[in-house]
């Protein structure tokens, strides 16, 4: 069975493409799939940091393209999960070092040996983006509930629709704050979906744990208590074709809140009757 090549893109920078790639990749690998993460953000690589593999990189994507090493030599195995590999980007070069055809060749090769190839796309719509989507047949568009990010996502979806290889794309809404949505200070998930007229594959709540996990070089899906981690695990399961309900982000943390929610639900039921 040939593997699936999924590009993770957004247009706008800083919405969480790399975090999403690292976490979905780790979650898929945890579920027993073989996964390669390909960092195409050449010159501004971060994926290795998030996975804590920075010190293990000897050969990079550019070395593979320029035939200084074999593809297998450049794959860095994850510390914990042997199912997960990273093909890192070169830090000392720029986006022009790899062309769309060259990346397509590499992803086509990887497809034969791995279940999932996740391509972490750079920000922007220039050559780097065109290169990253070249080999992919599916896309995940990451956005946040902010107007600027939604606009950029709209632009990206337009480009994805125009691109030849992309067969399907899904929306991942990141950094959602239920409290702000409640008080009408933030676009709701439904609003974003309506504006972009695109189906969602996941909703990730804002989580301060992400910052800690980035700094430690350990994806948040390894932290079982984290809500964002759970959300990413669910996204991974949905990618794999499972039908997983979306997390209830309104879940209050303390006992009083839980009691309140329970009571309010109870009174609503009473009214309906």
């Amino acid at each position, binding site marked *: 069975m040939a593997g699936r090549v999924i590009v993770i893109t957004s247009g706008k920078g800083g919405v969480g493409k790399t975090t999403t790639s690292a976490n979905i990749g780790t979650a898929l690998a945890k579920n027993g799939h073989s996964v390669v993460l390909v960092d195409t953000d050449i010159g501004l690589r971060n994926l290795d940091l998030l996975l804590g593999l*920075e*010190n*293990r990189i000897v050969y990079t994507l550019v070395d593979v393209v320029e035939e200084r090493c074999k593809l297998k030599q*450049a794959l860095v195995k994850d510390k914990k999960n*042997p199912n997960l590999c990273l093909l890192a980007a070169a*830090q*000392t070069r720029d986006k022009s070092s790899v062309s769309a055809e060259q990346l397509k060749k590499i992803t086509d090769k990887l497809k034969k040996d791995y279940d999932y190839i996740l391509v972490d796309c750079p920000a922007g719509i220039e050559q780097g983006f065109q290169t990253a989507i070249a080999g992919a047949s599916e896309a995940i568009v990451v956005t946040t509930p902010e107007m600027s990010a939604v606009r950029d996502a709209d632009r990206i979806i337009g480009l994805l629709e125009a691109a030849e290889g992309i067969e399907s794309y899904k929306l991942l809404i990141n950094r959602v704050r239920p409290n702000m949505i409640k008080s009408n200070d933030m676009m709701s998930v439904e609003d974003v979906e309506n504006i972009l007229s695109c189906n969602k594959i996941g909703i990730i709540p804002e989580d301060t744990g992400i910052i800690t996990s980035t700094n430690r070089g350990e994806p948040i899906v390894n932290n079982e208590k984290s809500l964002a981690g759970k959300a990413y695990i669910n996204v991974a399961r949905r990618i794999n074709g499972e039908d997983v309900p979306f997390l209830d982000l309104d879940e209050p943390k303390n006992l009083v809140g839980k009691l309140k929610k329970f009571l309010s639900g109870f009174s609503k039921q009473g009214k309906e009757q």
Partner: protein
Amino acid sequence: MEQCLDDNMYMVDLGEVNSAAEVIFELSNILDNDEVKNKRIHLRLGDVTLNQAQLLSIKSLINGVDSTLSTIDTKSSDTEKVALSLGIIVSNESEENNTEIKPQTTYTPQEEYKEEQNSEEAYKIVEESDISVTEEQEPVEEQEIIQENVSSQTSQEIVEDTLQEEVKEEISPEATIEQPQNSEQKNDVKDELEVIFGSTPVQTSIFDTELPKEVYETKNELEDIVVPEEEYTKEDLEIESFPTKYIKQTIRSGQVISYEGNIIIIGDCHPGCEIKAFGDITVWGILGGIAHAGAAGNQKARVRALKMNAIQLRIADCYSRRPDSLNTVYVEKTNSFTPEEARIINNEIVVFKIND
């Protein structure tokens, strides 16, 4: 230089080659040939001395073309020791005895099948070894697993037959498997993964977790007694005669400094930068990137820094990486640092604190 082809054994004769670099060069030329693929390689070396890193890179070169390095024939005792420590069989037999090295039982079902297609002679051997050819329809991955298995198994057999007792002790009784068919069953998911992930990469061979030099250690020079007295050699002279590049700036992520001589940097080297020198690298600041001293192969080259926090240190052909425990967000800048120096000792990169 001759290459004799006998069945699955492929002999590479580099007996007249005198330096390690030439060995690797010649070998990589030979490995470009299609007929060297999927073979067990018998490597004949002359007087040339190889260290662990060089032998490892030779091994990974050979693994890169889906072949295995099964035996080595060398006249150098140092090379022999290194090879034994890596589990490669060493034979000191003279010229024409290669046929004895080739064990009869090494034919895996797959290999037999190939042989069968190739020639009738090989088919006779199949009959002799009396193993039925049943695995023909197996997928490619499994074939690889079996080939790996059997080659390791046979190598153990040879070791038992011909080599010293020391080596015998290293092999655990569990490792010797009597029937190839059984060994196939014992290998499950783990081996499959090895086939997918670990068959060639340099990362796994050089940075194999079992190897001691995976991570560089920091040692206190005063406490450490094992440091051998180093002689003043040609290599030291070479470093001293190199020109020196003097840089007075902070080297930031993505910047590459390379120079065919020594490099002195007054300033910090941030993570993500690369510094490559034929001679020594001296950083008057925090070294946080990748430093490669002696890039042309000079083993006496050293890396010095006020604070050693390098992601990777490379000296000549030795690699090491920062311990995972030191993967901190940033290094605190203080007024006083203890300068550190990295150099090769017994083929490992060791970092010393310079207290005096």
